[in-house]
């Protein structure tokens, strides 16, 4: 049977992708960020996941204002890399796992989650930056990836509670897939940042760390944080952190923290990442 063996939460700031692509991971600015991922890269080499369900959001790269799916899953064989205005990132194409993706999609729909299905889908930095952070610059990504896209741009975005619940349903779906697969789930985006308006540049180290503490907890209080709290405390773009709750919901009640890291700043953003396993 397939099993979700671990969950990763990570920022997906585009500038990190630029740093990797231009070989700046060790310079004074990026060094402290990338050193925080050294542990995780070594751990991923040992874990060798077969598939990653990668929860991310598209940043008006492949999706435009014509279609705004709240939850969408990529069921294709492979996914291209978006040109985000300066040419596609020089990273390998992303290979999907259509059997498991369709299995998850069908299971979620039966479980009352009204999914949008993508067959053709190009993925942007929201998905490729976490892959670079965890796997470096391989010629081919070492695992298959199921893109799971969430609308966190146009309000109302899904509630934390709904994100947690869909995470639980993903866990249930994966565990009913007959093939033996080592599956990880990653929740990406955040942490605190605001990219617009006179309040641009807001960061909140204290709140971000409280959020990480809540993810580590046995209780599920974190799922009930209202949108207005994310907006006030973590900037208008900090709301991306609801995507981490999909990962956390898929971990089950108790978790063990394997690694945790936080750094300010990367461009406009607070960088955080956490590695959890079901306990």
């Amino acid at each position, binding site marked *: 049977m397939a099993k979700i063996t671990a969950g990763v939460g990570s920022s997906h700031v585009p500038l990190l992708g630029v740093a990797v692509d231009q070989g700046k991971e060790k310079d004074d600015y990026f060094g402290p960020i990338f050193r925080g991922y050294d542990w995780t890269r070594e751990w991923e080499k040992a874990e060798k996941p077969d598939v990653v369900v990668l929860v991310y959001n598209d940043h*008006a790269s492949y999706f*435009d*204002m014509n279609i705004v799916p709240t939850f969408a899953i990529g069921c294709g064989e492979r996914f291209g890399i978006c040109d985000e*205005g300066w040419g596609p990132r020089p990273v390998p194409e992303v290979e999907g796992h259509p059997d498991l993706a369709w299995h998850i999609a069908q299971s979620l729909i039966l479980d009352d989650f009204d999914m949008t299905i993508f067959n053709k889908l190009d993925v942007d930095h929201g998905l490729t930056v976490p892959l670079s952070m965890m796997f470096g610059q391989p010629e081919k990504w070492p695992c298959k990836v199921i893109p799971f896209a969430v609308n966190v741009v146009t309000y*109302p975005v899904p509630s934390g509670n709904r994100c947690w619940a869909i995470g639980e349903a993903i866990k249930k779906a994966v565990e009913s897939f007959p093939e033996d697969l080592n599956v990880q789930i990653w929740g990406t985006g955040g942490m605190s940042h605001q990219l617009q*308006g006179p309040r641009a540049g807001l960061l909140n180290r204290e709140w971000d760390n409280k959020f990480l503490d809540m993810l580590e907890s046995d209780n599920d209080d974190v799922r009930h944080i*209202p949108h207005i709290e994310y907006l006030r405390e973590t900037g208008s773009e900090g709301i991306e952190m609801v995507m981490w709750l999909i990962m956390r919901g898929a971990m089950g009640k108790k978790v063990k923290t394997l690694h945790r890291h936080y750094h300010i700043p990367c461009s*406009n953003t607070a960088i955080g990442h956490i590695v959890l396993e079901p306990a």
Partner: protein
Amino acid sequence: MAENPIQNIHEYLAEFDDIPGTLVYTAARARKGYWINQFAMSMMKPENRERFKKDERAYLDEWDISEEGKQALLRRDYNALLKLGGNVYYLSKLFSADGIPFAEACSTMTDMTWPEYRQMMLDGGRKPEGNRSIRENLAAAAAAKGSN
């Protein structure tokens, strides 16, 4: 924290207006700014960028955008564009077409110069204190005035 509070959409949206210096991208703004954002998306194609750079006004005239919106785009007045329903992830395609870093474009929406903004970020970013609620800020200002 209340579990599953019953959310009335009017109350939910009204709270967004209390956040200082922030315009949340609501459905109303998404509707208003639809063509501004779709124009911005068109900047992802090199041939469109080329045509835009050659004659910005002529290119904008191909879109169903208000005169106010076109003027704001020509001026790169991003705060005005947010008010007209632009969204920063869409507008960022114009930052790229102009060849300026995302953070530099962000700085133009604040009261800081780009070097000042960059330094603020290096120093740990803008603090949440005093930036959470317009209502709270007004109450605090009134209390301070009263105690003088």
